[in-house]
């Protein structure tokens, strides 16, 4: 169990969105603009790190049969904290993320890492795992967000990138565009994987 391996695996080899197919709901919903994508990525990373650390701390006292509800309560607590902090200090972001802020609770990445890693490993490695996976999630969200906002609106972070003659493909910021972009990126990463395996 090496330090760099546990940290960097979330970036590409075990990227939660593109490799593990976790956390797809928020990925599709908030990637219509880079601001939303980054905001969600940061919020989810915070919850992931905190819950990984706490769950790793209590992993030896939690009875195996009821561990899932206990993990859910821990995660829900941190999500409530993030929800209230965001509503107070970043109300515009809170409003545009809408119901997906409380829905961080059921983000499969967080419960998945708690079950698969934090429940069995030490606090330090759980912290690294949470940080790495969170950054991987953030990177995936940003990649899709940049693609969708650039093609669908001609902007990145609200800054127009092309001249006024650019006719954006509205489809990309609408729901079908989300599915299409994610599907094509998944296909692309599969293709890269197949090429490097040969």
């Amino acid at each position, binding site marked *: 169990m090496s330090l760099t391996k546990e940290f960097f695996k979330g970036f590409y080899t075990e990227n939660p969105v593109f490799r593990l197919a976790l956390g797809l709901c928020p990925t599709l919903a908030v990637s219509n603009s880079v601001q939303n994508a980054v905001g969600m990525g940061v919020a989810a990373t915070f919850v992931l790190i905190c819950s990984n650390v706490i769950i790793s701390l209590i992993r030896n006292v939690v009875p195996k049969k009821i561990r*899932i509800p206990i993990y859910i*309560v821990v995660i829900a607590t941190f999500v409530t904290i993030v929800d209230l902090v965001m509503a107070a200090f970043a109300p515009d972001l809170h409003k545009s993320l809408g119901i997906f802020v409380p*829905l961080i609770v059921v983000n499969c990445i967080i419960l998945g890492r708690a079950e698969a890693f934090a429940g069995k490993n030490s606090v330090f490695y759980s912290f690294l795992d949470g940080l790495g996976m969170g950054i991987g999630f953030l990177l995936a969200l940003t990649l899709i967000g940049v693609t969708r906002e650039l093609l669908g609106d001609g902007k990145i972070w609200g800054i127009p990138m092309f001249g006024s003659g650019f006719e954006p493909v509205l489809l990309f910021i609408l729901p079908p565009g989300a599915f299409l972009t994610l599907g094509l990126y998944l296909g692309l990463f599969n293709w890269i994987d197949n090429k490097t395996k040969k």
Partner: protein
Amino acid sequence: MELKTLMIIVVSSIFINNFVLSRFLGICPYIGVSKKIDSAIGMGFAVVFVMTLASMVTWLINNFLLKPSPSNLFYILFSPKEPPDLMFLKTIAFILVIASLVQFVEMVIQKLSPGLYRSLGIYLPLITTNCAILGVTILNLDLNYSFIESIVHGFSAGLGFTLALILMAGIRERLELAPIPESLKGIPIAFIMASLMSIAFLGFSGLKIG
């Protein structure tokens, strides 16, 4: 509330704001269970059942335990100066309710239909993390629905999810036999299919109702 309002909720939850194809809720089981039509139908009905029950129970909890209103049970029992505002507990309370309901549904299905239980496999307990269920309960809150409206919303959101799931399963069963490029096989082609279905459902957003 009139029947008209309820019908508007039904049509809008199933078609115009379809939970999977417009609201992006319930994607994980959507991709995971939609390979065969039979398991899709089974999963769909389980989700409808849990969504309806969850909408009912969370509305009651919201109105009698969390909201700062004169009918708040804590206010009635302990008589503080003013009704306590416990809305910040909604996330924790709702998800615990959903987790228990799913546990209950799992036991019922295991008793009544072991075949369905086996074919749903890991995806049955995963209904707990189905964003659609927590999503519909929070939406009921945001949209300020009454008790009956919440139940109708939960039920028809579940129907919309089931519809999208069965459509996807039907397409994917045929895709098994189609010549697809290697890197697109499996999840990528499912998402591209979903995108085309989503475009079709976008057509409903022009529906003028009410």
